[in-house]
C-alpha cells in the first residue's frame, strides 16, 4: 500500500474572511433588531421614512441574522473544520472565493431591496426572484466545494460533523428551490406558484426546515467538532451521534405543519405535523445530552474557559428551545402561544443562545488558533459572556409573560358573553413594559458583541497571520468500492460521501412528499366556495402594496375557530377563501389585530385617516404612520402583466377583464374617491392641497390615483366574499 506522506496547506484566509463577515453582519443584523425593538416603544421614531418603517425592516432583521450573521458563521466553521477533518485543502480556491463574495453580494442585495419594499412576503424567503437565483448559484458552489473536498480527502471515514454539513447543503437546496417557485412579473416582482393553503403548507415546510437545516444541523456539526476541540476530549457517545443525525434529519422534515395549527390547513396534515414534532424531542435531546456530557470530568475547565462557557449556554439554549418546540406544537399550548410574543421569545432563545453563543464560543476558540496567539483579554470575554447571558434572560422572560398575558386577554369573556377586552389596544398597552425590558435585554446583548469585536481586533493585532497553513498527512490508499471483510454497512457508508448524500436526500424527501403532494393534488382537501372571486385589478394592486409594506409582519389574516376570535374578528377562516391568494398572507404574529374580516368594518375615510395618523384614530396604537401611501401615485403600468401571470397560475380572469383592466381600476378608484369626499374634513384639506399645488405650479396627484386608494380597495374586500348569499349550497365538496 502506498503510504507516502503528502504536504498541503489549509486555506485559513477564507476562514478569516467569513469570520470578519460574521462579526460585521452580526452587528448590522442585531442593530436592526434593536431599532425594531425601539419602534415598538416609539412607533414614529423613523416617521415618514418609508425604507425605515417596521414592515420593511422586519425581514431585513430576520434575514440579516439568519443568513448574514449565522450564515457566515456556518461557512467560517465549516471551512475550518472540514479541511482538518478531511486532511485536505478546500477543493477549489475559486469556489471558496465565489462562495464568499457571492454570499456577501446576496446580503448586500437583500439589505438594499428589503428597505425598498421588494419582498415576496414569505417568511425567511422574502428575497425576490433574481436574488433567489444568485443564492442558488452560490449555494451550489458551496456544495460543490464541500463534496469536492470530500472526494480528494486523506481521511478514510467521514466524521459525523461532515454528515451534518452535507445534509445542510442538500436540504437547504431542496427547500429553497421548491418554496421559491414563482412567476416573475417584473425585474423585482413575482407571484408564487402556490395559492392559499398550499402556499402556506409549502412555506412552513420551508420555514420550519430552514430553522432545522440552516440554524440547527450545520450548528450541530460545528458542535460535534468544536466542543470536543475546546474540551480536548472526544464526544460523549459517537454511537449516539449516528442515531442523532439520522433520526433528526428524518423526523425534522415532517414537523412543518405545526406552524399552521387551527388554521385552514386540512386536519390530517396538522395532526401529522404534531405527531412528528413531539417525536423530535428525542433526537434533539439526544444531541444536547451528547454535547453536554462531552464535558464530563472537565467541568472545572468551564469555570475558567470563556469558550466552553459560551458553548455550555449554547447547548443548554438548544435543549430549552427543542423542548419548547414540541410543547408549542401541542394544539392546546399552540392555541395560546401562536400569534403572540411567546413565539418571539422562543425563536430568540434559539437565535441568541444556541446560534449566537455557539458562534461566539467558536470565534473565541478559532481566532487565537488562526493568528497563532493567545486571546487578548480573558476578562473581556468573560464580561461578554455574562452581559450576553443576562441579555438573553432579560430579552426572553418578559416576552413569555407578554405572550401569556395577551393571549389570555384575547380570550377573556364577561359573564354576559361579551369580550372583557373588546378593544385590541388594551391588550397591547398591557405588554408595553415587557417591550421595554426586551429592548434593554437586547441592548445588553449587543453591548457584549461590541466588547467581543474589540477583543478580537486586539487579538488579531497581537498575532501573526498564517493564511496558508502547512500540514501533512499520508495519501489515502484506494480500497474496494464494496464492503470490506468485516465492515458494517454504516462503516462502508462513512467512507462514501456520495452514497451518504443520496441516503440523506431520501430521508429528507419522504416527509415532504407525504405531506405536500396530497394537499396539492387531492382536490377535496380545499373545498371550493362558489362566492369567492378573484381580486379586481385595483384590489390586486392594493394587495401588492400590502405585501410591499410588510403589513403581514404585524397583522395576521387567519381567524382561528375559537370563541374569542370569532367574537372579536368574525367568522373563522375557510380553506376555500384563499384560493386566489398568491402569496398567502396568514402571517405569524399579531402585534396588531387580525385583518381577515376587516372588509366593510370601517369607512374608507377611516382607513385614510388611520394610515396618516394611527394614534389619532386609535389611542395608544403602536402602528407607525404611512404618509407616503397617502401621497404617492399607485402604479397601473403593469397590471395587465400581473393579471396574465395570475391566469397562468389558475386565477380565472377573462380576456375582457384583462383588456379593460385600466378602466376597471379607474372606476373603482373613483368610487372610493367619492366615498372619501363624504367626509367634510377630507374635502376641506384635500381641496386646500389642490389649490396650493395649483398656485405654486406643483404636480398634484388626484386622490383616485394614489396608493392609498388601491390599499383601501384591498382592505375593504378582505374576507367579504363568504358574506355574499348564494342561493345554492355555498360550499361544495370537490370529488375525492
Amino acid at each position, binding site marked *: 500500500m502506498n503510504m507516502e506522506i503528502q504536504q498541503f496547506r489549509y486555506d485559513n484566509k477564507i476562514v478569516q474572511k467569513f469570520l470578519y463577515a460574521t462579526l460585521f453582519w452580526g452587528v448590522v443584523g442585531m442593530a436592526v433588531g434593536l431599532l425594531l425593538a425601539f419602534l415598538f416603544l416609539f412607533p414614529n421614531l423613523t416617521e415618514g421614512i418609508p425604507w425605515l418603517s417596521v414592515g420593511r425592516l422586519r425581514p431585513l432583521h430576520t434575514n440579516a441574522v439568519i443568513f448574514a450573521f449565522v450564515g457566515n458563521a456556518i461557512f467560517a466553521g465549516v471551512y475550518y473544520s472540514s479541511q482538518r477533518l478531511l486532511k485536505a485543502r478546500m477543493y477549489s480556491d475559486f469556489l471558496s472565493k465565489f462562495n464568499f463574495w457571492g454570499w456577501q453580494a446576496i446580503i448586500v442585495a437583500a439589505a438594499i431591496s428589503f428597505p425598498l419594499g421588494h419582498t415576496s412576503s414569505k417568511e425567511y424567503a422574502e428575497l425576490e426572484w433574481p436574488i433567489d437565483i444568485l443564492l442558488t448559484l452560490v449555494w451550489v458552489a458551496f456544495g460543490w466545494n464541500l463534496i469536492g473536498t470530500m472526494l480528494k480527502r486523506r481521511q478514510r471515514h467521514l466524521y459525523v460533523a461532515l454528515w451534518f454539513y452535507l445534509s445542510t447543503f442538500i436540504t437547504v437546496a431542496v427547500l429553497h428551490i421548491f418554496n421559491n417557485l414563482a412567476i416573475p412579473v417584473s425585474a423585482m416582482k413575482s407571484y408564487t406558484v402556490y395559492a392559499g393553503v398550499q402556499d402556506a403548507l409549502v412555506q412552513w415546510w420551508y420555514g420550519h426546515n430552514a430553522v432545522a437545516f440552516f440554524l440547527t444541523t450545520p450548528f450541530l456539526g460545528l458542535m460535534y467538532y468544536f466542543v470536543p476541540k475546546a474540551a480536548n476530549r472526544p464526544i460523549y457517545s459517537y*454511537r449516539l451521534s449516528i*442515531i442523532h443525525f439520522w433520526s433528526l434529519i428524518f423526523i425534522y422534515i415532517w414537523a412543518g405543519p405545526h406552524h399552521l395549527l387551527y388554521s385552514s390547513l386540512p386536519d390530517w396534515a396538522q395532526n401529522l405535523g404534531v405527531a412528528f414534532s413531539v417525536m423530535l424531542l428525542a433526537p434533539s435531546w439526544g444531541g444536547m445530552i451528547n454535547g453536554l456530557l462531552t464535558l464530563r470530568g472537565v467541568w472545572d475547565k468551564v469555570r475558567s474557559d470563556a469558550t466552553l462557557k459560551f458553548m455550555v449556554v449554547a447547548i443548554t439554549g438548544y435543549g430549552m428551545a427543542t423542548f419548547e418546540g414540541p410543547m408549542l406544537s401541542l394544539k392546546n399550548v399552540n392555541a395560546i402561544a401562536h400569534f403572540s410574543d411567546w413565539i418571539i421569545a422562543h425563536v430568540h432563545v434559539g437565535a441568541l443562545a444556541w446560534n449566537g453563543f455557539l458562534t461566539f464560543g467558536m470565534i473565541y476558540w478559532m481566532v487565537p488558533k488562526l493568528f497563532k496567539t493567545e486571546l487578548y483579554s480573558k476578562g473581556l470575554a468573560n464580561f461578554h459572556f455574562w452581559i450576553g447571558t443576562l441579555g438573553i434572560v432579560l430579552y426572553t422572560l418578559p416576552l413569555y409573560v407578554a405572550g401569556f398575558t395577551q393571549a389570555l386577554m384575547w380570550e377573556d369573556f364577561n359573564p354576559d358573553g361579551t369580550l372583557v377586552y373588546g378593544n385590541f389596544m388594551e391588550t397591547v398597552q398591557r405588554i408595553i413594559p415587557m417591550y421595554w425590558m426586551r429592548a434593554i435585554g437586547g441592548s445588553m446583548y449587543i453591548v457584549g458583541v461590541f466588547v467581543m469585536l474589540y477583543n478580537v481586533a486586539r487579538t488579531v493585532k497581537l498575532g501573526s497571520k498564517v493564511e496558508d497553513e502547512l500540514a501533512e498527512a499520508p495519501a489515502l490508499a484506494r480500497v474496494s468500492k464494496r464492503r470490506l471483510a468485516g465492515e458494517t454497512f454504516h462503516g462502508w457508508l462513512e467512507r462514501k460521501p456520495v452514497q451518504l448524500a443520496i441516503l440523506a436526500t431520501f430521508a429528507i424527501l419522504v416527509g415532504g412528499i407525504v405531506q405536500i403532494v396530497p394537499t396539492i393534488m387531492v382536490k377535496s382537501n380545499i373545498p371550493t366556495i362558489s362566492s369567492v372571486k378573484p381580486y379586481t385589478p385595483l384590489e390586486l394592486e392594493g394587495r401588492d402594496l400590502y405585501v410591499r409594506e410588510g403589513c403581514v409582519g404585524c397583522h395576521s389574516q387567519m381567524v382561528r375557530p375559537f370563541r374569542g376570535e370569532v367574537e372579536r374578528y368574525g367568522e373563522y377562516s375557510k380553506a376555500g377563501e384563499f384560493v386566489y391568494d398568491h402569496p398567502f398572507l396568514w402571517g405569524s404574529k399579531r402585534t396588531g389585530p387580525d385583518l381577515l374580516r376587516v372588509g366593510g368594518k370601517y369607512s374608507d375615510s377611516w382607513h385614510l385617516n388611520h394610515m396618516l395618523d394611527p394614534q389619532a384614530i386609535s389611542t395608544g396604537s403602536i402602528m407607525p404612520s404611512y404618509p407616503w401611501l397617502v401621497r404617492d401615485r399607485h402604479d397601473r403600468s403593469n397590471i395587465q402583466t400581473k393579471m396574465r401571470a395570475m391566469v397562468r397560475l389558475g386565477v380565472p380572469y377573462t380576456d375582457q377583464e384583462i383588456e379593460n383592466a385600466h378602466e376597471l381600476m379607474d372606476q373603482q378608484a373613483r368610487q372610493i374617491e367619492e366615498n372619501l369626499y363624504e367626509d367634510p374634513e377630507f374635502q376641506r384639506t384635500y381641496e386646500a392641497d389642490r389649490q396650493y399645488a395649483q398656485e405654486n405650479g406643483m404636480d398634484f396627484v388626484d386622490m383616485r390615483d394614489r396608493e392609498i386608494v388601491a390599499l383601501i380597495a384591498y382592505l375593504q374586500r378582505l374576507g367579504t366574499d363568504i358574506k355574499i348569499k348564494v342561493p345554492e349550497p355555498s360550499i361544495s365538496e370537490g*370529488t375525492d
Partner: protein
Amino acid sequence: MLKFVKQHMETMEGVANYPMVSLLIFFVFFVLLFWWVLTASKEHIKEMEEMPLEDNDQPQNTTL
C-alpha cells in the same frame, strides 16, 4: 402552473394506503438505524470519535 399537473392526480388511487406506507417506512428506517449502530465495532467508533482531536495543524512527524 400547478393546474397542468393537478388533474392527473385529482383522484389519487389508494390514497388510503398512504398512512400505512409511511408507518412502515418509519419503522423500517429506525430498525435499520439501530442495527447499524449496534453492530459497529468498538475500534471503529474509537477511531471516529478521536478524529477532531488529532492536532493536524502541525506537520506530523510520523514515520511509517
